[in-house]
């Protein structure tokens, strides 16, 4: 997909000013996710679980080459075709061959963030293939021609009325249709697509090396249908999705669902080992299974000694839900497929820091994201790494650099620090706000008021 992250500030400003209902919808939805997650974890030793999960994922990543080969061997034994794609254009070429060979005209697609990352839909459409997103949220935003705004809930920025309006226009449902009526209209249209499509496309939440299994979590049943009804199934899987053992899977399924929506596990989980139908001696299911293992920047991130841990991400979206900055705008401001705190870490790693620059700064550094991560990715530390690199590479504004220099020199001269502290406390807020070194920072934030008495004064008087 095209990356628009450089415009983050302008896009965020526009969303907040022009569509305040987005903030309302996103905040309400993410609060519900956060509450449900908290309840789901209430009786658990969250710390022990996340330490274990961190260990398993870090183990898998530090042995990734062997596990990828193991998964490939298991899949091939079961009759699956395994493809390797270094870039988005490799993915396109693989699809072009499959689509041509089988004369594919219609595709049903289950939600896959990786397919967004590699711009798969526009490519397939350019090949003359009709592509239908089947996840209800994805279907809504496909009708609206928008990208997803959240990893788990792609349409959380849309209200009931937004969906009513677009369904009225495109499917002819009444303007005041109930959510049930709207869902039924989508079900009817997409049911026909499931039964007539020649190809089903999915992502993959996990790839179990020991058994070559692709695991997918969902609630609607559209993933089960997309991977079961059409005669061909292609799964797009990022190379970092590996779990070493079959025995690791049950806990990862549960922590991902709990962290995402607070459910014990999704309503439907598909654990796919190979093609179905006659090659497997089964009554139905796709006779061909293709698994596309995608790099697209992941090996570059793995080679990064400071940021590689971001590859543990299971895409639960918990860090988006808790983030006070994400809640203001939803995902579209970030201009990239992965938004929120983890998006701000992954984007510079996968695409490059220059192309995604303001994202690591789109954070209040409150640390809430690190607290909810089920695989203990130190997101604030990783954001800090990117910020530091941006300054070192001279990518930030001159003002930002001089502020940091000023802080550094003041911070190492106690006398100067005390004086500055005192002066800051005496200035009225309106003046502080417009100090040249704070103007850029305070444009998107409320300026804190300096305390009446400085810490040093309190200290000298003796703190009770």
């Amino acid at each position, binding site marked *: 997909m095209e990356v628009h992250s450089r415009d983050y500030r302008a896009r965020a400003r526009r969303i907040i000013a022009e569509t305040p209902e987005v903030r309302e919808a996103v905040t309400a939805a993410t609060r*519900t996710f956060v509450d449900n997650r908290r309840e789901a974890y209430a*009786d658990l030793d969250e710390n*022990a*679980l996340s330490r*274990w999960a961190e*260990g398993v994922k870090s*183990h898998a990543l*530090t042995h*990734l*080459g062997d596990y990828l080969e193991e998964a490939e061997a298991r899949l091939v034994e079961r009759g699956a075709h395994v*493809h*390797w794609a*270094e870039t988005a254009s*490799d993915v396109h070429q693989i699809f072009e061959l499959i689509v041509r060979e089988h004369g594919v005209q219609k595709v049903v697609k289950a939600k896959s963030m990786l397919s967004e990352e590699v711009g798969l839909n526009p490519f397939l459409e350019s090949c003359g293939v009709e592509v239908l997103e*089947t996840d*209800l949220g994805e279907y*809504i935003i496909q009708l609206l021609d928008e990208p997803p705004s959240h990893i788990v*809930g792609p349409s959380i920025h849309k209200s*009931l009325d937004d*969906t009513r309006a677009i369904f009225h226009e495109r499917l002819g449902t009444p303007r005041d249709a109930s*959510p049930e009526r*709207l*869902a039924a209209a989508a079900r009817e249209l*997409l*049911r026909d697509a499931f*039964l007539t499509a020649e190809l089903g496309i999915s992502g993959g939440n996990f790839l179990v090396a020991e*058994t070559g*299994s692709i695991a997918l979590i969902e*609630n*609607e*049943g*559209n993933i*089960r*249908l997309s991977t*079961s*009804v059409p005669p061909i199934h292609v799964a797009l899987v990022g190379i970092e999705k590996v779990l*070493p053992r079959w*025995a690791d899977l*049950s*806990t990862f399924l*549960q922590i991902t669902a*709990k962290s995402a929506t607070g459910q*014990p*596990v*999704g*309503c*439907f*989980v*598909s654990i*796919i*080992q*190979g*093609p*179905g139908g006659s090659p497997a001696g089964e*009554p139905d*299911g796709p006779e061909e299974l293709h698994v596309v293992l995608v790099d697209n920047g992941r*090996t570059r991130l*793995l*080679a990064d000694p400071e940021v*590689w841990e971001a590859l543990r991400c299971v895409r639960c979206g918990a860090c988006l839900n808790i983030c006070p900055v994400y809640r203001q705008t939803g995902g579209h401001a970030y201009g990239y497929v992965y938004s929120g705190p983890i998006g701000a870490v992954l984007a510079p790693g996968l695409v490059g820091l220059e192309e995604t620059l303001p994202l690591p700064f789109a954070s209040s550094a409150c640390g809430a994201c690190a607290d909810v991560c089920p695989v203990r990715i130190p997101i604030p530390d990783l954001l800090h790494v990117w910020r530091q690199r941006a300054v070192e590479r001279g990518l930030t504004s001159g003002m930002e650099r001089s502020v940091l220099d000023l802080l550094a020199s003041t911070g190492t001269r106690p006398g100067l620090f005390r004086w500055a502290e005192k002066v800051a406390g005496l200035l009225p807020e309106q003046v502080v706000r417009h100090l040249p070194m704070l103007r850029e920072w305070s444009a998107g934030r409320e300026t804190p008021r300096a305390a009446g008495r400085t810490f040093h004064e309190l200290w000298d008087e003796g703190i009770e």
Partner: protein
Amino acid sequence: MSRDARERILSRVRDANRDREPVSHPGALPEAAEPPGPFSETGEIGDTGEAGGVGGVRGTDPVRAFESRFQAAGGEVIRLADEAAARGWLEDFASEFESVAVCRGVPGALQPALPAAPPSEASLGVSVAVGAAAQSGSLLLSSREGRRAQLLPPVHLVWVRALDVHTTLGDALQTCREDLPAVLALHSGPSKSADIGQILVTGVHGPGRIIAAILGADAVAEPPGAV
């Protein structure tokens, strides 16, 4: 292209890890950290002392625990003491439907006396689970049974033997490990979505009603209202 891409990706992966300290696998999840089932939430289920606290998945009745969690997700549960009881219940239950699509493994005695229809047209689908997990409230379904009858009809009846209901999801998956079908699926409630204005709707793509009929379990005096 594919062959070269494979070699290049694998060599970049190995180069990336060359100077990195390998992390060892932490082994099995400590039992104390095992996500508990519905026991500690509901209190009345398996009210044994050891069921409380953080661990608390072992030592409770898995059938009762499964029932509680499956119902919490919107599924329906009926317990039937034996095949005779099952047949009696089935006759009554089937009267609501016009046609049925039956999966391969369903024994004759457990097939409703309804006209057969293709899964895309049947009003009821019937299958047999290879197992169930109390911890997550999941039925385990094999693709060897045929997937369409599990997915296309609006209502899905699943037979499961009480002795196949495991406590943890890990235990249930482990029993399938040696002989995996093309797809092992977990069905843990009716199809649902909150993608339209965050309002919960059931029966979006998959079945909007799912009934777990547990065989060989002591029938409860009062069957769950929905069935």
